[in-house]
């Protein structure tokens, strides 16, 4: 019985810590302005049925999306740089031209195909994105 009470108290402490951490996190969220505007996120969430007057949750989704796109972009950038490095070895004349990093379809498809991310887009199907995009949750054990 005592142990049960103690464990309950322990849980309450954890909950308090969690609550404090969460409220701190939400406060920090309001300081950060995500690149994806709130109105856009609100519009698409409303289309899916999300309903909440709290701006912080909208911001949280916006930040999560920004993080996701940032990861995809970083992977695509790595592919792009790798491709440029390979090209430069062969043709040193074109060094000047290839300095600009451009987001190309092939880099993007490679980046999206990697199973690290939640969204999976298979190579020939990204033209039919509307039909074929599926989201999987990926857990590491």
């Amino acid at each position, binding site marked *: 019985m005592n142990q049960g009470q103690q464990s309950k108290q322990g849980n309450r402490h954890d909950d308090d810590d969690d609550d404090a951490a969460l409220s701190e996190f939400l406060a920090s969220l309001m300081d950060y302005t995500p690149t994806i505007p709130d109105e856009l996120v609100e519009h*698409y969430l409303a289309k899916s*049925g999300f309903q909440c007057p709290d701006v912080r949750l909208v911001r949280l989704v916006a930040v999560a999306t920004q993080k996701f796109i940032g990861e995809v972009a970083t992977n695509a950038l790595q592919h792009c740089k790798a491709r440029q490095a390979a090209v430069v070895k062969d043709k040193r004349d074109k060094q000047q031209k290839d300095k600009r990093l451009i987001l190309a379809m092939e880099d993007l498809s490679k980046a999206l195909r990697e199973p690290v991310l939640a969204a999976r887009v298979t190579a020939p199907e990204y033209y039919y994105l509307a039909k074929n995009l599926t989201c999987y949750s990926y857990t590491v054990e």
Partner: protein
Amino acid sequence: MSDGGREFESSQGRKKSRNSEFVQAIARIAVAQVCEGMGFQGFQQSALGTLSDVAVRYIREIGKVLNSTANLAGRTECNVFDVIHGLEELGASESLAESGAVREIDQYINMAEEIPFVCTIPCFPVIKDWKVKPSFVQVGETPPGEHIPAWLRAFPDPKTYNLVQDADVGMDKVELVKDHRKKGRSLSDMQRQLDCKGYDAPMVKSKRVADINPFLAVPLRFGEKEVSPIILPTKLLDENVVQNPTARASHVVDDVTNHVSALETFAPAIEAIKSRERKKVHVNSRSTVQFKFGIGKKFLGIQNEGVAKTTSWFGSDSTRDERKRRAEKILKESMENPKELVQL
């Protein structure tokens, strides 16, 4: 009837695509900014479109998960725990479940550079005031048939669906309406008339929309800059207006012709003088043939319809100004002395 139905559907589809264009454009801009922050300097249009589609679908997927989570808990409104649960379900965290989506996002916020969105967006979609149309009872009419209950909305004014000449409609559109009235009314004609009242032809409208809406504008190429427009002095603008009284407002957009309007007035005067006609050349009876003297048709980077006139000045030579002044002078002289031969 089937034709009318199809036309109606297509106009609805056009409306939807017009609404979603704006949202998609904003999404593209936002995604482009994120990628630019990551280090990209340019984008393929298709790649950018795909990535923005992915972002939109991600947001919608989160929304669906949040909605279902809240509904399962017996709520219609979502709270922060729903959001965290949804993010975890979608695999926002690639590491062990313990560290949690929240912590990852927290780290991201602390590390990542803050890039605010470029433009200020108005609150959308704009909700118009709902005009409550009165019912038969409220209006005080009796419905025209026994089968129609009185609590239903009253029928619209017959003027709205009879093809009647409208003061707002332009000249040739009125003629079109007259023709249709002779031939007999149909649903497609009504739609067309409604279109005339509210909308232009889709090509012109889309061009105008692109002109007015900066989000839908064609992106500048690498190294290009937006140039501020030049305001023409009022004197020249008035001259153009005087010389083109029959031109409709929409023709102002075809600005190339306005700038040769002096030469245009000049040409019949020359002909009249050459053929020894004593009559003055009336401005109203001018032919509508336009002369173009090596003026470029397209003006890059200029989006504002009202300033389109000024752009050709921006690109023209000073010799053309002199030529125009000379032409005007000669025309004035010819008007005063119609019998005299003018050597060019």
